[in-house]
């Protein structure tokens, strides 16, 4: 059940209505049933996998909690670590089997083949369970949080199961933390008009990002990337920039709909995107992009690896590991790893070159607070991030390299050719104009957010005629200009495959 499907548009209001009507003490059971129903609309069997992860991490929480009673410190820590290890190993094994087995066996076969060893590794044709990377990470964060005593071990299995399966953020995040979401399950949520309205506005903006922006940007990206070999460098650059915006709108839309939907019911989910393309460095970009995943890696991988506490070289190594793993998390393929490694390398190189940059700035008397300087940083960061998106969007590492070569004008003498017409970019005059207006809206909204203006709050303070005008324009703009309906195979959100 996709957020942009008719089913969800019927499911969500029905769930909300019942949620506020039924007694508080059974609401979590109701939401749990709804969440499993939501998940089982994709593949009923795979709900068992989620249940397994839930059971393992639930048990790990209780066991870690019981281990706290052991008086001998060494034994206590050893026992706790054992439970954490068991929880992580079993969950990651499930994730590995369903997501990485094919990739790992193929890579092993190739490597061994090059060494002259021919082996036949059995293949399993399994469909990737929707959202497995998301709920596995969410569940693992609970094990770790209980271990670190940042949260109590939940005794009620059903409440814990709801934390893992909460439908708004189940399949594509934000990857919540137990210390934020689990405790909210016990809260008594009333129907508060203002909160419900702001949740709905956020959902509306998410739908705009998905069915208008992401879809039309996707038309440009698909038309160019699907025929990249015949394209000019300039066309590929335009398409890559469009992809950067597409993936932001696509993933940002899912987060906005998820956060908005949860807010309607009274839940506060963490922010997942904070104007990422206004970042002034790659590190800054990662503090603004997919925040729930970045902080997950920070808290549960980077810091345990030693973070920046063990010297510069170790820090750089840790960064590369984290971003390599992050790439792999996004997909079982080398081009995702390349994307992750590039993002890690940007930061390592950036830090390595920092003294030189500082020197240059001192010599040239660069005012770091000037708009021009920050704008330059934003442009450079955007350029670097785009460069890495090439490998993310490409279907293989080699394809990414080929695209990069064309972009750099290798073997071409018509680098700057735009193309014959808009058709070549998958657009018409009307859709191009629509896209430009939509991008302007996206830019204004992000600019306001960047400057600390809460547009939803601002809007709700305006006169009724203005508010309603905005609501109607937004609703009907999405309904008319959106890409959906029969004949349109509701494209899954890009992040579903991760």
């Amino acid at each position, binding site marked *: 059940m996709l957020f942009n499907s*008719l089913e969800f548009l019927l499911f969500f209001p029905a769930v909300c209505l019942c949620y506020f009507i039924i007694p508080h003490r059974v609401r979590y059971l109701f939401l749990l049933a709804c969440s499993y129903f939501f998940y089982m609309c994709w593949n009923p069997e795979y709900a068992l996998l989620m249940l397994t992860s839930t059971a393992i991490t639930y048990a790990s929480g209780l066991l870690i909690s019981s281990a706290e009673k052991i008086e001998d410190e060494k034994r206590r820590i050893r026992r706790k670590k054992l439970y954490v290890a068991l929880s992580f190993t079993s969950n990651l094994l499930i994730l590995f089997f369903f997501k990485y087995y094919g990739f790992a066996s193929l890579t092993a076969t190739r490597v061994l083949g090059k060494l002259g060893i021919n082996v036949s590794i059995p293949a399993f044709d399994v469909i990737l369970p929707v959202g497995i990377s998301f709920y596995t990470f969410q569940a693992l964060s609970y094990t770790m949080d209980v271990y670190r005593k940042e949260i109590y071990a939940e005794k009620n299995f059903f409440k814990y199961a709801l934390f893992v399966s909460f439908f708004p953020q189940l399949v594509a995040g934000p990857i919540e933390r137990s210390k934020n979401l689990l405790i909210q399950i016990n809260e008594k949520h009333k129907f508060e008009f203002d909160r419900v309205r702001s949740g709905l506005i956020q959902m509306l903006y998410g739908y705009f990002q998905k069915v208008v922006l992401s879809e039309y940007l996707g038309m440009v990206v698909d038309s160019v990337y699907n025929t990249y070999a015949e394209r000019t460098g300039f066309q590929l650059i335009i398409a890559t920039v469009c992809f950067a915006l597409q993936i932001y709108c696509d993933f940002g839309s899912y987060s906005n709909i998820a956060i908005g939907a949860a807010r309607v019911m009274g839940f506060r989910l963490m922010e997942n995107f904070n104007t990422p393309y206004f970042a002034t460095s790659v590190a800054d970009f990662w503090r603004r992009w997919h925040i729930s995943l970045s902080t997950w890696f920070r808290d549960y991988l980077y810091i345990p690896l030693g973070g920046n506490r063990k010297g510069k070289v170790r820090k750089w190594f840790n960064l590369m590991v984290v971003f390599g793993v992050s790439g792999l998390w996004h997909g079982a393929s080398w081009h995702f790893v390349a994307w992750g490694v590039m993002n890690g390398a940007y930061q390592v190189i950036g830090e390595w070159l920092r003294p030189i940059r500082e020197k240059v700035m001192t010599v040239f008397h660069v005012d770091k607070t000037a708009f021009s300087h920050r704008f330059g940083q934003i442009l450079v960061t955007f350029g670097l991030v785009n460069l890495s998106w090439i490998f993310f969007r490409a279907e293989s590492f080699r394809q990414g390299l080929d695209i990069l070569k064309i972009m750099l004008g290798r073997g071409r003498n018509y680098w700057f050719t735009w193309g014959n017409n808009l058709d070549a970019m998958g657009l018409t005059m009307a*859709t191009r104009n*629509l896209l430009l207006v939509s991008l302007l809206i996206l830019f204004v909204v992000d600019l306001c957010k960047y400057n600390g203006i809460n547009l939803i709050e601002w809007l709700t303070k305006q006169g009724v005629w203005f508010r309603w005008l905005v609501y109607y324009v937004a609703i009907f703009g999405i*309904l008319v200009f959106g890409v959906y*309906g*029969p004949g349109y195979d509701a494209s899954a959100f890009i992040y579903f495959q991760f």
Partner: protein
Amino acid sequence: MKKRFCQIFGVVVFLVIGIFIFACISEVLRAKTASNQDTDMIHSLYKLEEDSIDVLVLGSSLGYSSIQPNTLWHDYGITSFCMCSPSQAVPTSYYLLLEALKYQKPKVVVLESFCMYLGKKYSKEARLRQAIDGVRLGKVKYEALNDLKFTNEKTGLKDQMSYYIPFLMYHSRWNELTNYDFHPTGQYLKGSIHSYDVAPIEDPGLSKIRKKIPKVSRRYLNKIKQTCDENGIQLVVYAAPFGVLEGNVEMYERWIGVTNTLETYLAKRDIPFLYYQKIPEAGIDFATDFRNATHMNTYGAVKLSRHLGAYLTQQFDMEDHREDPAYESWNKDYEKYRSIAGENEKSA
């Protein structure tokens, strides 16, 4: 409490205005069932004054190509409407009849018989949509869609909903809208079309070949007859003349064969049948009265309508409304029709 009441009231008003805007936008975006200069076909039914028509025509494109309601009005004072659509199968005609009867009480239903040969409930999805999309939400639409499509074919929720809310299907027309979408002006044609192209075709002659009428067509023809009887309506079936399409004699023989069988079938049931290929006095000329191999042009439609009007007047004592001030708009519509027809005739 007062605040809560204001909020609920606000939401209700917001929804009501929203539904109104939605209806307006849907009207603009819906696929118009004909091109710019033509009528708006089935959608125009709702623009007619209730209980204002004497004759309801059902059937395929041969129906709206062969009957000219403005001529029936001008020559006989008969008010008529062509509730026809391309490749309209008989089961579809049945449901359109039920829908029309919610608003009109015609004295005669005229069924154009070309699509009798279709052995299915609708020819293809686009044709079903042309006929049904415009039908208002209600029991008839629900039953029609269930019977014609949903019970026979696996149709997803999204596709099903797109029949009930055609906006889901047609919202993407936003970048192809023309002035006509905002101002559909074809209602004056009462479901017929203007067509002054002349494509001379060979008179295919009368064939005695007979083909079986598909069961589904017979079943729904009987349902149409039963509905007409229950409502005190006279059913008349007619076969507009047609030629051989793209030299496909086999196809022509199938059509004419079914029509021949239908003639006998209807005679046995005492249903009047006007087989225009056998009525030379209608004066239809294959050399001048067709716009293509199977469809008559307006010259032919005027001739056929004159004959049909005379027949209906003689047989069923049709009332002449021409002097009735309540029907003044029909005179204006005729003038409008004539002004465009005259221009086309001059330039021809």
